[in-house]
């Protein structure tokens, strides 16, 4: 074990902002990317389902269909 106490650990020998700034931002980006990937999946499936419903609605659904395709 390299640390005398937890406060020594969090202090990182006086380099806390640099070390935790690196790890913190990386963690945020990783979590953010995972959230984006999950959202993208949901949005894609919902959009394709809407698209299909609109085209199944026939001529009446024509405009709605075009809007979704946009």
């Amino acid at each position, binding site marked *: *074990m*390299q*640390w005398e106490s937890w406060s020594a*650990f969090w202090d*990182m*020998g*006086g*380099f806390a*902002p*640099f*070390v935790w*700034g*690196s*790890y913190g*931002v*990386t963690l945020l*980006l*990783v979590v953010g*990317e*995972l959230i*984006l*990937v*999950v959202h*993208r*999946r*949901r949005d*894609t*499936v*919902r959009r*394709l*389902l809407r*698209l*299909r419903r609109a085209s199944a609605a026939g001529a009446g659904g024509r405009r709605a269909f075009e809007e979704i395709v946009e």
Partner: protein
Amino acid sequence: MMKDMQKPERSKSIFRFAAPQMFYPLAGKLAPWFAGIAAVLAAAGMWLGFFVAPTDAVQGEVYRVIYIHVAAAWMSMFVYLVMAFWSFVGLVMNTRLSFIMSQALAPTGAMFCFVALWTGALWGKPTWGAYWVWDARLTSQLLLLFLYLGFMALTRAIEDPRRADKAGAIIALVGAVNVPIIYFSVKWWNTLHQGASVSLNKAPSMATTMLTGMLVMALAAWAYTIAVTLWRVRSLILERERHTDWVAAELNALEGKI
């Protein structure tokens, strides 16, 4: 979920997974495993990096940024090469899935590229006295970020998927020239950035526990990239294949559940 999908023609060859219809379920099965491996490796790597590896004699504790900095920098270069590889395969063999793979990889490569630059800046300030210098290593790494962003912007801006695929493939292939430039920049030019700590032809210039922690984190980055790319590629495949019967069947299965 798979049962009510129509059975595609069976082939024993591994190349059957080049068909988006076959790759989609495979990606869905593999992704959680790679995500799990990534989480375990990242936890192990940080344990080694923070609690087992000693303090650096010269830099003190700030060197511990290395465990993400090096993993992210390696990954950012490697992912670009993989994108270039799939782009090449796509252009030569005209396989749709190859282009989709390179597009699924780009955001994760860009993320790691940014992480390498960001952690480098936070490491540079206390050790060099500057967040940023325009030396060859840093400048070529910044160019890599712009190549990623350019690739993503271009493939999303062009509406016709076939043209978007081709245009993206050209950026990926041309930009790949930058990767060896980044890697060898510390040798070719007199850079502020230090030379490689790890190379194949000499003993590593660091403590074994430091090196192990770094390699474990690099493996975690690999597993993470594979997991996220597989999840992302599934959405891209559904988009592209939306007019096919198998996507219709998949949508039937998902209706009301998502």
